[in-house]
């Protein structure tokens, strides 16, 4: 890997020539941003491979998934990878969000890019949900019905929005083709577009958040070549781990939804929506299923705008003092969401 430092390749050129060494450390970044980009790349590749076999019609969708999982050579690997990479992306994106808030890196001029990041997290969740529904088997039936009914619960706009999303009065062929189009095209395009914008803004906003030069204890920097080497190392390790996980743990699969299929006895949302499922047990679907989740997002989006930001000389390290309020708010929010998730998983909590 001898590269000529004077003539960086296209890929090297995507990186800044040098970045400050303390902030390039894994224990500062957790590698979450870079890993997210790599995971999206893996998702696009495995997703394209899946498209060669997937048939987006209610009669054939689940059977085409079975074909992929059992009959296509390495189809199981591609499908399991797509599934596990998608789960990991949600985890890594949340870790990235936590890192940014706990280090106060969202402070101006990076406030807007923080919002772009939040949008990317939401897009990932929507992609996960639409991808989950594409299985069109008994395992996703509850989430499909409950999820789309949430849309219906919105006052005034609900009915119209529901028709827009589902394409009829109940989930059917139109709903599946819409979810498919959103998954492979609409949402993916948005994710790639906003993602590119997010990366552009990282560079435009001055790269990774660092204190002003006079406040730095360690002024050393690493080159883009070193940075790319670290990224490659992380990507190779992540791929190896994912292949092992995808080989051992198959992605969920269930019998197709057929005429008269009963709703599964154990109705469970995908794990990242378990907290919403738990909230839904407590009352009005609009308040608990739509309003409160939207308020959580608004609260997250408001962090850089409504709460005290860290001072510039506090940047580039974990838990700066000037950022206490934001950190505390996020910790409380994370604990609440975790508790709701645990509650949803506990056998004591039954759906009314």
């Amino acid at each position: 890997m001898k590269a000529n430092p004077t003539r960086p390749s296209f890929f090297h050129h995507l990186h800044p020539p040098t970045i400050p060494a303390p902030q390039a450390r894994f224990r500062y970044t957790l590698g979450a941003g870079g890993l997210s980009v790599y995971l999206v790349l893996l998702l696009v590749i495995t997703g394209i491979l899946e498209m060669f076999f997937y048939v987006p019609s209610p009669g054939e969708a689940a059977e085409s998934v079975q074909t992929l999982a059992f009959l296509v050579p390495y189809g199981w690997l591609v499908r399991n990878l797509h599934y596990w990479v998608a789960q990991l992306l949600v985890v890594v994106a949340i870790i990235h969000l936590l890192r940014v808030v706990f280090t106060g890196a969202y402070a101006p001029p990076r406030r807007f890019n923080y919002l772009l990041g939040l949008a990317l997290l939401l897009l990932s969740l929507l992609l996960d949900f639409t991808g989950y529904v594409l299985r069109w088997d008994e395992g996703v039936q509850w989430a499909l019905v409950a999820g789309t009914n949430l849309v219906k619960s919105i006052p005034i706009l609900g009915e119209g929005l529901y028709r827009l999303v589902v394409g009829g009065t109940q989930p059917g062929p139109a709903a599946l083709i819409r979810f498919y189009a959103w998954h492979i095209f609409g949402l993916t395009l948005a994710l790639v577009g906003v993602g590119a914008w997010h990366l552009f803004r990282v560079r435009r906003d001055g790269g990774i958040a660092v204190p002003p030069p006079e406040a730095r204890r360690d002024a050393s920097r690493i080159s883009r070549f070193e940075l790319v080497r670290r990224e490659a190392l992380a990507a190779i390790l992540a791929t190896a781990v994912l292949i092992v996980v995808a080989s051992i743990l198959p992605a969920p699969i269930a019998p197709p939804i057929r005429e008269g299929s009963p709703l599964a006895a154990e109705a469970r949302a995908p794990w990242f929506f378990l907290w919403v499922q738990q909230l839904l047990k407590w009352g009005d679907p609009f308040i608990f299923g739509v309003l409160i989740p939207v308020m959580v997002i608004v609260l997250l989006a408001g962090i850089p705008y409504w709460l005290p930001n860290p001072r510039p000389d506090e940047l580039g390290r974990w838990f700066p003092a000037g950022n206490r309020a934001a950190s505390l708010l996020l910790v409380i929010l994370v604990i609440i969401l975790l508790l709701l998730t645990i509650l949803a998983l506990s056998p004591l909590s039954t759906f009314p």
Partner: protein
Amino acid sequence: MQTIRLFLASLLLCLSLLGAAWLQSRQPRPVSLLPTLTGQVEYCLTCHADLPEISPSHPVETFGCVLCHGGERLALDADLAHSTMRGGRNPSEFAVVEASCGSGDCHSGTAQDQRDHIQRAVTSVQGTYAGAIASIRFTYGAQSDQTARLGVYPVQDDHLTTATGLASLGTFDPSQESSPSVKAFADYCLDCHLSAEPLPGAQYARLTGCAACHTPTANTDLDQPVHRLTTAIPYTQCNTCHNRGNYDLRQMQFHPRTDQPVDRLHDYYQPIAQFVRCEWTLDCVDCHTRFEAMGDGDIHSNKKEIQYIQCRTCHGTLDELPLTRTIAGQDDLALRMAFLNPVIDLKVGDTVLVTEQGEPLWNTRQLADGAFELFGKATGQRFTFRPVMGTACEQKLDQQESRDCHECHSVKR
């Protein structure tokens, strides 16, 4: 340092890829089957290649597996593949039989097109157990006569063809009964209808639904699946329910027979029974007809209303020959039945015995000298016999029931 790390990581990646390749090499090679009736490929044979074909009438290239059994035809994971099977291992269970044996109008339809097998079996006394229920409820004062009102499941019949046919039966619900004896009957005596799980023991080993009779499981271990359907039903299969013991109506208990028969003569009936030679040398199905065993399409109150074969059906009486019919065309039911179980090479122009209800005894044929031959449906054995007319039989003309024949002809054992 960096280079070594990258090298080690790449090594790890290569190992993980090798692991995935190893797993792929261990995947079973899919064995596909494209049944002509469904036109949809299925992969059940990947694991089930060693199963014998269920019957010559259901060739696997034509029917495949999924048409009868359901299940996920593409899944090579046993749990998923089997998760949607109809009736578990037995798709002929009455709860699912319409979707399996009845689908595609195979064994479900009208009496006119001879496809009402399911309708007849489900409404038969063997299916509803209406006779036993009516008799017990009458005995203990829960109903005023012996006409059946309840079955183990509700049934309905819009098209009555016999004088004793009933329009419908409700569900026998023990919790609605006031008599302790009727409740005890429900607890201890509902083991022998076609939907009931058999009592434990190899002598009771049978499946449920159509397979209770058509899958030979008698004296086997039910944990070993039997993949066979047949119309050559040996008496041992009937004996998984019949001739197994007696019900004590005071204790409301079943007392299994205690003898240990070593030969067919002693095995066929219980020690108390009176019977003639042809009864134990033949199998039950050699004389008892489809209507008797599977029902005639009407709901009946008891066995007496449906069992009508007598000695005279085959042998006639002193002044009457048995009823016969000459097979006129290829579509004759007798020919079709003989085709299913080719113990006899029946042809158009042959004359077979028929019952008073017009059912052909298709395993018989009239010989040139006026005698008859009969082939055992389960054994293939050939028997010949003559009509009573013109013999030295001393029977009175007004005593022509089988029990009257037994007076002279019963077997001593």
